[in-house]
C-alpha cells in the first residue's frame, strides 16, 4: 500500500468505468472508515485489558486510590494523588515553555526567516525530534543537573523575599525535580508543536497578511491581527499533541524527576509522575502492586480524555469569539 503518495496519474475523466468506479468509491469509503475505527478498537482493547487487570487494586479502595497521598505497596496502600500532581505540574511547566517557544519558532520560519535559512531551522527542529527520549534523560541526569542545581539555588535565594514566588521557587539541594523534568519535556514537545504550528501558519491566506500590511501594520501587528486569530484552533490542536507527549513520557522523566512522594508547591523539589512511576516500579512489582501500577495508567488515560474534552470546548468557544476565524 502506498501511503504518502499514490502512483495514480492525475485524475482523468473515465466515462467507461462508471459502475466500477462507484463500487471502488464505496469500498474506499469502507476502508478509510475502518482505518478510522482502528483507533477506537485499539484504544478500546487497551482500556479493557488494562482496566480488567487493574480492577482489583482500584476496587481495593477506590477513594484512597484517587485521593490518597500515601503509596506503600508493601502495606497495600495505593494513593496515586502525588503522581497525578507530578504529571500535571511537569506538563504545565512543559506547556508554558514549549507552546510559546514553538509558536515563536514557527513564526520565525514562516514570517521572518529567509527562504534559505528557513531550511536550516526546519532541520534543527526535526533533528530535535530524532533524539531518543532515553538520551534526553541521560544528558539531563548526567550533564544538565549539576549545571542547573546552582542556578536553582541562586534563583530560590532571589525569590526568597517575594511572597508567593518563594513558595514556588524554594530552597533545594538537587536539580532532580519537577522543574528540570518540565524543561526536558518542553524540549521534547517543541518539534511536534512547531511542525504543526508551522503548517497551520502556512494556511493563513496571503490576502489577509497583505491586507494587514496595507493598513500600515508592522510585522508584529500583522502576526497579532491576521495570523494568530486565524490559527488559534490549529495551535490548540498542536499543543494538545505536545501535551499528550508530555504526559505520557516515561524514561526521560524517570531519569531526572528524583522519584519522591511529595505534593508541594516548590517546583525545585523532587517528585514523580504517573508514567514514570509505572516504568520505575513495574519490574519489581507483583500482585496487587502491579495491578495498582496498571491502574495508574488507566487513571492517566481518564485524565487525558478529560483534558482533551476541555481543550475542545476552549477551541469552540474561542473560535466563536474570534470573528472570521475558521479552521
Amino acid at each position: 500500500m502506498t501511503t504518502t503518495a499514490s502512483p495514480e496519474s492525475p485524475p482523468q475523466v473515465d466515462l467507461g468505468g462508471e459502475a466500477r468506479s462507484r463500487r471502488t468509491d464505496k469500498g474506499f469509503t469502507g476502508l478509510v472508515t475502518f482505518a478510522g475505527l482502528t483507533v477506537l478498537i485499539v484504544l478500546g482493547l487497551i482500556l479493557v485489558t488494562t482496566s480488567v487487570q487493574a480492577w482489583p487494586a482500584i476496587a481495593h479502595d477506590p477513594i484512597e486510590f484517587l485521593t490518597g497521598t500515601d503509596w506503600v505497596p508493601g502495606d497495600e496502600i495505593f494513593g496515586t494523588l502525588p503522581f497525578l500532581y507530578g504529571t500535571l505540574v511537569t506538563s504545565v511547566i512543559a506547556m508554558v515553555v514549549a507552546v510559546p517557544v514553538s509558536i515563536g519558532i514557527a513564526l520565525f520560519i514562516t514570517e521572518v526567516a529567509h527562504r534559505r535559512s528557513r531550511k536550516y531551522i526546519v532541520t534543527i527542529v526535526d533533528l530535535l525530534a530524532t533524539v531518543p527520549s532515553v538520551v534526553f534523560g541521560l544528558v539531563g541526569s548526567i550533564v544538565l543537573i549539576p549545571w542547573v542545581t546552582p542556578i536553582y539555588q541562586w534563583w530560590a535565594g532571589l525569590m526568597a523575599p517575594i511572597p508567593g514566588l518563594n513558595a514556588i521557587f524554594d530552597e533545594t539541594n538537587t536539580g532532580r525535580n519537577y522543574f528540570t523534568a518540565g524543561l526536558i519535556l518542553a524540549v521534547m514537545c517543541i518539534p511536534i508543536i512547531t511542525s504543526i504550528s508551522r503548517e497551520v501558519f502556512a494556511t493563513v491566506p496571503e490576502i489577509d497578511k497583505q491586507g494587514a500590511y496595507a493598513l500600515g501594520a508592522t510585522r508584529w501587528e500583522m502576526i497579532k491581527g491576521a495570523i494568530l486569530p486565524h490559527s488559534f484552533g490549529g495551535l490548540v490542536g498542536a499543543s494538545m499533541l505536545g501535551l499528550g507527549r508530555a504526559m505520557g513520557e516515561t524514561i526521560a522523566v524517570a531519569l531526572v524527576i528524583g522519584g519522591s512522594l511529595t505534593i508541594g508547591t516548590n517546583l525545585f523539589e523532587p517528585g514523580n509522575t504517573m508514567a514514570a512511576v509505572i516504568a520505575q516500579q513495574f519490574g519489581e512489582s507483583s500482585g496487587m502492586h502491579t495491578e495498582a501500577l496498571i491502574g495508574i495508567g488507566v487513571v492517566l488515560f481518564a485524565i487525558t480524555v478529560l483534558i482533551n474534552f476541555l481543550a475542545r470546548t476552549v477551541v469552540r468557544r474561542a473560535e466563536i469569539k474570534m470573528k472570521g476565524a475558521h479552521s
Partner: protein
Amino acid sequence: MKLNRRTIFGTITAGALAMSMAACGGGSDDDAAGDGELVSGEITGSGASFPDAFYAAAIEAYAEVNPELIVTYNAVGSGTGKSEFGEGLNDFAGSDSLVKDGDGPAEGSFQYIPTVAAPITISYNLPGVDGLQIDQETLANIFQGAITTWNDPAIAATNEGVELPDTAITIAHRSDGSGTTSNFTKFLDEATDAWTLGAGDEITWPEGSIGGEKNTGVATVITQTEGAIGYVDLADATETGLVTASIENADGSFIQPTLEATTAALEGAEVAEDLSYNPLNAAGAETYPIVAPTYILLHTEYEDENVAAGVKEFVNYLLTDGQDIAEDNSFAPLPDALRQQAVDALNETIA
C-alpha cells in the same frame, strides 16, 4: 503450560543432541560442562537486575566454553521475571526475593538456586571525610530523616577524632523498585528499633530525599550532591569510586563492605530447606551486615529436554567455574557448603 515457539526451533536444530543428552543426563553430576556432549540451542532467562552484571560476565565466559548454547539474561526486574516464569516465557528466572502468592509461579513448580551474593554499601559524599563508622540505630535515623546534619552527636559518637562538617544530610535512594531497596530496608527493619518506614521494594522516603534510577542513578546523585548518603551495590560503588562507610554488625564491630565480609555473612546465615537464606545482620565478628542474596528459579518440569539440559548446564556452570568470575565483578561467591547444596538441588530438580 503453553508450547514454546522457541523450544520448537531449538528442537529442530538440535533434536539429535537432545536425545543424547537425555541419555547421559544421569551421568553428569558435579561438572556437566566437563563430561558428555554439550547442549546446543537457545535458553533465555529474565528477572532481577541486581545480579545482571555477574550473569552477563558469566554468560560471556560460558560462550567460550560452549558457543553452541546461546544464553540470554534480560534484567527486567525480579517481579516481572517471576511473572514471566509463571507464564512460561522464560526458561529460568532471576530473583532477589522469594516467591509470594500472586507472583506468578505456582507452588511446587519451581526450585530456588542461590548463585551469588553482594554487599550493599552505604556510600556518602563528604569531602575530606573517609572511613566513617556508623552504628545500626544511627543508620536508621539518618535514612529516615531524624538525623539531618553530618556533625550530629550520634554520628560523632562512633567517629572519634574525625572532624565532621555541619553539612546537611541528603538521602539518596532508588527511584525504581529494586531488590536492593528491599534488602536494605529489610535490614533496617529487622536489625534496628528506630526504623519506622517499613520494608519493601519501594518505601516512602523522607521529604527532600533524592531518587536515582538504578544503582548508577543513585551513585550519580551521591557524586553530584555534597552531603549525600545512599545505598549502592558494591560494583557501582567501586566503579564510580564512592566512599563507603563501615557499618556496625551484629557483633558490634564496624566492617567495610568487602567480598570477604560478605562470604563470611553467608557462612553465618541459616539456610532453609528450600535453599532460601537470610544473610542480613548475620552473626560473626567479620561479617558485613547488609548483604543481598540472589536466586535463580528453575522449573521443576521442562517440556523440552534440550532446554532442560541447557538450563542445567548453564546453571551448573554458574555454580562451579562461574563462581570464579563473581569476584572480578564485585559479587561474593557462595561458601562451599551452600554451593554444594545448590549443585545437589540442581541435579535433583533436573535429572
